[in-house]
């Protein structure tokens, strides 16, 4: 007798993960154009933007770039007069591309390594939402070998196989207190893999207006045997066994894009991309622990994402033989419905602004730089699952640079 079940200890279901965290930073030129450019055979980043356009690239090339991303999110609890900010941490989305094919042949090979999804958000260990999340570090690195073929002089198709290597580290406080009053802590850390594909069609009309249709498949990333560590008072260690592991599944959504490229003059081209991001596959997030206790049960948290979408308009102007200037604007609709906004993805509809420039000092070398800014709208929310109640506001700043060698 006299037993007190601890099952209520974690009455808020555990864990929320990997959400509206699509990172739209895959090529410096396209970033400078707000992420538009699937209908332009601009450079080797077409491996990502449109494999069908790769075969229309004039040169073979390799490029590497990085876009240090500063995700500045703030939260104010409903009724509070205190604004809390995430720590300044710089996430490093990067991209590497190589394109090669025999000159004046109908095919080209490509390779892309890039980070289409990710998130780095650290609210600190003692913020007011700490029992929902203290920090998330999510990285998805896609490796994509690609083949692109010219069907005619004006139509190209291409496809790539995608292998994803995912890393997740998620931390939150647990509302049990040590003798000194501090809270317990949980850390979930794991790596996972997933597979998918990326295929595109590129059509250049007689008027030189180009069209693109690209589909990037969903990538279900499975995390098996990740470590689940719990820092709790000794008297509760039986409920949170040491050396526990978990399995989880992270569905990264498919994206279908329609692109248009319109040459305005010999040196100026306009690009428009509309993307449909099929987040509806993210209905719930489940964690399956290897060892369960009454206090640590497997969880299944509703996410109920709907599909998201984005519209991006960019311009590329070749100001001189060596200098290109770019700018873009965009708008994206969040996949996160009311009641499901969480601190690791304080998502809302967002505006996108960008600028970029390219410099070509020699025939072989090219430097491109960009600046990407997102203004994520302020969103007042009460999370259905955790009860976290307040307003999120996020600004994203990402300057970037890449180097290209062409031959």
């Amino acid at each position, binding site marked *: *007798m006299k037993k007190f*079940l601890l099952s209520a*200890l974690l009455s808020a279901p555990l864990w929320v993960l990997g959400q509206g965290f699509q990172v739209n930073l895959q090529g410096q030129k396209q970033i400078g154009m707000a992420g538009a450019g699937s209908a332009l055979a601009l450079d080797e980043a077409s491996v990502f933007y449109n494999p069908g356009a790769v075969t229309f690239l004039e040169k073979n090339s390799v490029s590497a770039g990085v876009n240090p991303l500063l995700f500045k999110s703030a939260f*104010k609890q409903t009724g509070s007069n205190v*604004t809390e900010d995430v720590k300044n941490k710089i996430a490093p989305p990067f991209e590497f591309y190589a394109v090669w094919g025999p000159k004046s042949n109908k095919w080209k090979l490509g390779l892309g390594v890039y980070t289409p999804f990710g998130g780095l958000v650290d609210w600190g260990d003692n913020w007011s939402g700490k029992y929902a999340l203290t920090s998330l570090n999510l990285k998805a690195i896609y490796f994509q070998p690609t083949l692109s073929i010219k069907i005619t002089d004006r139509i190209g198709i291409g496809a790539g196989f995608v292998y994803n290597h995912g890393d997740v580290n998620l931390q939150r406080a647990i509302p049990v*207190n040590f*003798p000194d009053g501090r809270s317990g802590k949980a850390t979930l850390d794991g790596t996972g893999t997933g597979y998918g594909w990326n295929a595109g069609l590129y059509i250049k009309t007689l008027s030189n207006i180009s069209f693109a249709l690209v589909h990037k498949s969903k990538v279900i990333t499975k995390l098996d045997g990740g470590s689940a560590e719990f820092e709790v008072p000794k008297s509760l260690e*039986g409920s949170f066994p040491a050396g526990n592991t978990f399995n989880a599944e992270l569905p990264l959504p498919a994206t279908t894009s329609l692109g248009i490229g319109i040459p305005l003059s010999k040196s100026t081209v306009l690009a428009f991309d509309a993307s449909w991001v099929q987040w509806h596959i993210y209905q719930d997030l489940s964690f399956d622990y290897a060892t369960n206790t009454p206090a640590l049960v497997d969880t299944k948290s509703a996410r109920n994402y709907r599909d998201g979408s984005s519209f991006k308009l960019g311009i590329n102007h070749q100001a001189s033989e060596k200098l290109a200037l770019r700018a873009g604007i965009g708008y994206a609709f969040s996949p996160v419905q009311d009641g499901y906004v969480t601190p690791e993805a304080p998502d809302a509809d967002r505006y996108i602004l960008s600028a970029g420039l390219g410099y070509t000092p020699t025939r072989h070398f090219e430097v491109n730089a960009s600046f990407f800014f997102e203004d994520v709208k302020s969103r007042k929310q009460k999370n259905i699952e955790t009860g976290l109640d307040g307003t999120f506001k996020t600004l994203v700043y990402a300057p970037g640079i890449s180097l290209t060698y062409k031959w």
Partner: protein
Amino acid sequence: MKRYILNSFVAAIILFAAACRPEIETPAGTTAGQANFSKYIAVGNSLTSGYADGGLYLEGQKVAYPNLIAAKMAMVGGGAFTSPFFSEEHSNGSGYISLTALVNGTPTLTPVVDKLAIRDAAKHLDKYNGEIQNLGIPGMRVDLAFDPTLTFSAANPYFERLLPDAQVGKTNYFQFIQGRNHTFFSLWLGNNDVLGYALNGAVTVSTDPTTALTDKVTFSSLYANFLNVLTAAGQKGIVGTIPDVTAIPYFNTVTVAALLNAAKAINPAAAAIYIQTGTGAVRPATAEDLIRLPFQSEGIFGKPNGSGIPYGLHPLNPIENKWVLDKDEVIKLKDYVNSYNSSIKSLATSKGLAIADTYAYFNQVKTGINVQGVGINASFITGGAFSLDGVHLTPRGNAVIANVFIDAINAKYGSTVPNIDITQYRGVKFPN
């Protein structure tokens, strides 16, 4: 060269970005509305004093809900808020119980006996001189606040410690709270008018007025007296309703089902738990009968009497009435609470006061709520809201209930007293 220009361009952007933090504008903390918080006083009982874990001690005093509210009122013109804190040297005050072990879910509760503020063999507590605004006194009741014999001011050690020697035994609480020049007040009183009776298993001891059940009409008229003096100079304030005392962990942890399971583990033939009801009748217990929390540590369950009949498991040796709130007593207590609350609400409404409906809120807590990522419910130890005595609040519980008061104040007076971040306050401390 161009590379350097680019690099410095990027560096400048990063610096710029670091400076550009998102802004969120809200009205919280900007106005006192129609209220004036410059001198707030809190009238009440143990809950108001910060009593927790079966005792009054410094850590609990500091997080008493009025102290948490006052700290937020300070942002909209509230003044200093003074409380009769125990000294650091005697920070454990009256002493309290702590959780020292939890083995397979079975708690060991151990009294804390160091750093006590007990000043003499009669267990009187360290005196506190000086002005105070947290006027909460553990054990205070609406009826005894008007104690005509004036003896409660001597008998209650928490009251006694606040009085100069000359006044001990010569005043009552109703007099004590007056003349304090307040501009705002909270009044959360009346729990003990029913709880004192309930905690004694619904048995009134004639020599102990703290076990009486206050008459409904008496309650209403005495409560009106409180509101009259507290609003005498037109002051604004807030009253709190009385939680359902039968919903607290004290009455919902040692359940009939748990006792029966324990009995069956020893003797599979055990079929029922027997109780003696308030009418003296003996019958099998049902889920609607509530057993008091201390019964588990009393160690009498199942013990054979002189005739070899195990305690609580046979009609001839039932669990005594004092340990049990039987079904009819529960109904009676709920009825009294409802009656007190309708008096409180109608009196407060007629005075134009704010009402913190803690009755409604604790009913939600009983079924479980999620607040800012923290699951809170009425479970003993693990629920997070109730301290180790199963009656009083943890720091987290105080923070949650302080927000109930703040929300009601803001709604009534158009003020924007900021809410409290409840995640900064602990639940029960678990042993290492």
